[in-house]
């Protein structure tokens, strides 16, 4: 790791820390409690940014997968894989925070609504993605297979969303707050989204760096054994 990377990571880490602290302050102190749904509504500032990051992560995996198959540079595969890992973790968080919020608000843990179902299907597709990578016979095969699933899986997202939307038309149009978002709420949401996005970038940069190093070590080991 050279100096430029260390500097970049330090900046990301510092920015992420400041934003995350600001986000926590805004969620728990600054923003007023929403009057209809009460205190539980504050999970919104966690749930929405996490959901945004999970979609962003799978989109990045999609783009990086295309670039990997096209350019065959190991760094794109490292980005795709690291992003998918973060995406699966964040989708898991979405699927946990969603029901926690839904139970007191809608009175149910789960509904087969388009957004929920799409998140669940996405989670299953990218779990398969990670499994395929782990169960590949050799790393380059895993990279190729992963890239194909990263592309094929992401294309499924709009189709699943459309289909489930038609399938379950009693979509609760997610009226969480009557009268929309007030300015403090919107401001808090923006800061939270920024904080989680920076966290995502940091995690992917670190994860991709780690994977590149692993690939490097594999290469050096191979070279030492005279392959």
């Amino acid at each position, binding site marked *: 790791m050279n100096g430029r990377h260390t500097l970049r990571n330090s900046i990301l880490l510092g920015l992420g820390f400041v934003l995350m602290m600001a986000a926590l302050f805004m969620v728990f102190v600054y923003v007023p409690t929403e009057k209809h749904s009460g205190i539980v509504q504050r999970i919104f500032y966690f749930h929405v940014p996490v959901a945004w990051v999970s979609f962003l992560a799978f989109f990045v995996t999609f783009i990086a997968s295309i670039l990997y198959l096209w350019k065959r540079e190991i760094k794109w595969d490292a980005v795709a894989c690291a992003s998918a890992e973060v995406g699966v973790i964040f989708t898991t968080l979405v699927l946990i925070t969603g029901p926690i919020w839904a139970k007191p608000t809608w009175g149910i843990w789960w509904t087969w609504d388009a957004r929920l179902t799409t998140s669940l299907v996405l989670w299953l597709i990218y779990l*398969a993605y990670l499994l395929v990578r782990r169960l590949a*016979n050799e790393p380059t*095969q895993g990279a190729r*297979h992963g890239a*194909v699933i990263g592309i*094929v899986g992401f294309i499924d997202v709009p*189709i699943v969303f459309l289909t489930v939307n038609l399938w379950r038309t009693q979509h609760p149009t997610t009226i969480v707050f009557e009268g929309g978002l007030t300015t403090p709420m919107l401001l808090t949401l923006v800061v939270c989204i920024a904080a989680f996005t920076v966290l995502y970038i940091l995690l992917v940069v670190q994860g991709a760096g780690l994977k590149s190093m692993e690939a490097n070590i594999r290469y050096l080991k191979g070279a030492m054994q005279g392959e």
Partner: protein
Amino acid sequence: MFVKIIAILWKDILTEFRTREIIVSVFVFSLLVMVIFSFAFGTGVDITESIAPGILWVALTFGGVTGLNRIFAVEKENSRLEGLMLCPVDRAVIYWGKLTASFTFMLAVAIVVTPIFLALFNLPLFLPGLALIIVLASLGFAAVGTLFSALAVNTRARDIMLPILFLPVVVPVIIAAVKATAPVLAGRPWADMLIWLQILIAFDIIYMVVATLVFGFVVEE
């Protein structure tokens, strides 16, 4: 190119005639799934619209995934896959040959399984609407399944890899097929199933194009 696709299809049909490895076992398996589900849900007159389409599609989906697993697994024996890859044809041709073979086998199973299903549930046997849904859904299954079958066959734990990959991706096909089958079984007009047929057609086209583009990367050595 068309001739080459037919050649691969013909090779698979000929092998199937001689070994009877895929169609018969998938047929028995689909039938069993259907019977087990009928026991699990009970069979009343009132369930025709709510449960019957689900039973049919669970049987065809699980039967389909079993057959799709075999379509490349049989090629693993005696290094037949290497032989196939050495053919002086484009990788897309191999994909289409295998796709038409999977599609043909799935239809062959459905042609026998579906009338048995209709008889078991005392439904009319002649349903052109249902035939259309089965053709479109099988094409979607085959388009995605052939790609993933080629992928899964080269991984460890390959038997479980295909269902794990295949089932989440074909969720739209399963939903659309079930929702389109319900009005057909209830004898409602075609207009009720139009939107679902459109989804099936869109899915088929999208995945045939995308899979043709990426298939080469899957089988690359």
